[in-house]
């Protein structure tokens, strides 16, 4: 049984199960840099917010999978990932941590812990469940 590193809202159920190295994107400059590197398709993108503009060019150019630390399927990024059919796990929390995202009341350490734990890991997204999306470790 593969290790589930994180779980969150599954935006839409799909048999697609993209795998890649998690890339934490902290700023628009990171997004532009990734696109210009030509390596967009190698990465599962990890972002803090659930808004869509931050990831706009990455979604448009063919991002294969997205993990967010806030937001829900009704958020703009949720709507757009559904339209692009890009598997997306939103408001992901680490399965090995008690820390959870609470709107307007979440310490920076919550986001830092997720970024630190997932960035650079080789993972696969499991989005087959109606409600729960999973970030699964790959060797």
């Amino acid at each position: 049984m593969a290790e589930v590193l994180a779980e969150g809202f599954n935006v839409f159920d799909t048999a697609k199960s993209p795998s890649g190295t998690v890339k934490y994107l902290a700023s628009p400059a990171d997004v532009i840099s990734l696109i210009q590197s030509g390596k967009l398709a190698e990465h599962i993108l990890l972002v803090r917010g659930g808004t869509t503009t931050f990831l706009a060019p990455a979604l448009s150019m063919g991002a294969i999978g997205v993990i967010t630390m806030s937001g829900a399927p009704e958020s703009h990024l949720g709507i757009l990932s559904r339209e692009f059919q890009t598997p997306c796990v939103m408001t992901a929390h680490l399965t090995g941590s008690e820390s959870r995202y609470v709107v307007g009341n979440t310490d920076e350490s919550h986001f830092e812990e997720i970024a630190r734990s997932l960035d650079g890991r080789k993972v696969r997204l499991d989005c087959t469940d109606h409600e729960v999306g999973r970030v699964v470790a790959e060797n």
Partner: protein
Amino acid sequence: MTTMENKRSTYQQRYEAADDGLRFQDLTYTGNFVGLEPVTDGIKGDKMMRSRAKSGVLERVSKDDVLRDQFTIDELNDLNNYLAWNIWDVLVMRATEGVSGMIPRQEYEILAFMHEFYRWPEILRMTTDEAGGPQGVMDIGASARREIGTKVNAVHDWCIGAVGFGMGRCGLLALEVIGPDDYIEESNEILKFMQRILWGKRQDGYILNSQDRYRCRIHEPDFLATLTAQVEPLEAGSPKHGAFTQFNAAAELLSFLDHYDCRLGLGDTGPYELPDGNLLILRDLFVNEEVFHWSDVCEDAGLPHAYTLAIVIDPEKMALAEIRVNDISTTFTRPKNYIDAIVGGAVFSREKWNTPMGQVNHIAIDELDDHLERVRAATFKLYSKTARMCRRDLIWNGQYVYYVDMILPHMRLAGAYEKACRDYDLWEIDQRVANYYYDITKRGFAQETVPSKIFSGAGYLPFSDNADRRRSKYRWL
């Protein structure tokens, strides 16, 4: 989609009078009804809110009702409560999305809410005059029944009351610069304008999609027939299906970006039941709004004002259990993924906001590649441009998207936009709101205080039963 095999659609049960619909979320709403049973989302929530109304304003109303000059205090309070629930219903889950990392949306939103509440009343009064009176405003709403690529749509029309009145008043109450009985006459002005536009558009006596089990079936049948005649069959997994759905997604994304990450860039109507049992959603995607100076990159890419997609969904293929076209023009389904159930599509483009319907272009799906490339190029350029803007510019640009664009289509059709710019300083920032810029980041006002009051419903204080409807704000104490 494999899990849906052998299941039948049940969505038509949602239209039976006794049906309460599905729950799309576990949260419940209280608002001004402390001590009563919490209100759910969806069809059941609509029923609960209407059952608590003191007036008949939330039921089907007549043309004479709509033409009346003012709402009573009971009607104002019923609308205030219903809009507050409706805002919660459509936005409470979206509002969990946190910071953008790109555009300070909470900050620009709260400034726009307050600006609208202060400035819109006299602009909407002037727009009503320019339209020839209340009937003219209803005619502007009705124009949407025979058009595509028009911003006279659910989200814009809803925003007049839900945002300009509801959230604007809520924000100013939270900032403690107004009291519950201030600006009653102005509140009436905003809400009457909203009611007239929406009633004229729907023409079934309701004003909101949530009152009609989340349907926005506004287009005339003969007009719809001219669009559905262009629909091409699509098969999930085929290149053509991929071209259509990828274009839909890319154009929708640019519409969001051009409108600063808000839903004013897109508008769904439907679901329309087709003779073969399939469902049609009409989706306007406004990829190039000429009044925004940053939209020059969209102009340079040769993009039209709007693309319109006719999206045909087979409800059996996805075992559709419920479909909602909500009041912010967005379609949600259960099951959530409708893309593989798209079995037909057509694309149209409207060059300018006032291009006559007879000159709207049909684009064959095989010819979408060129449009997709232009949409992608504009998206990247607009993103790069936006990434270089300072925080202040991002906030005020976003503020303009709300404050101007929400009433722009109505002003345009009334012939009032130029007058609003010239004689009413539309694009100026009111000094009160300019000063709030420095207040909203203190004590988490934009990030926590206002969102919590807006989305819990706790901030929509009622007007007093005996309040004077003529009341503005006369005392600053």
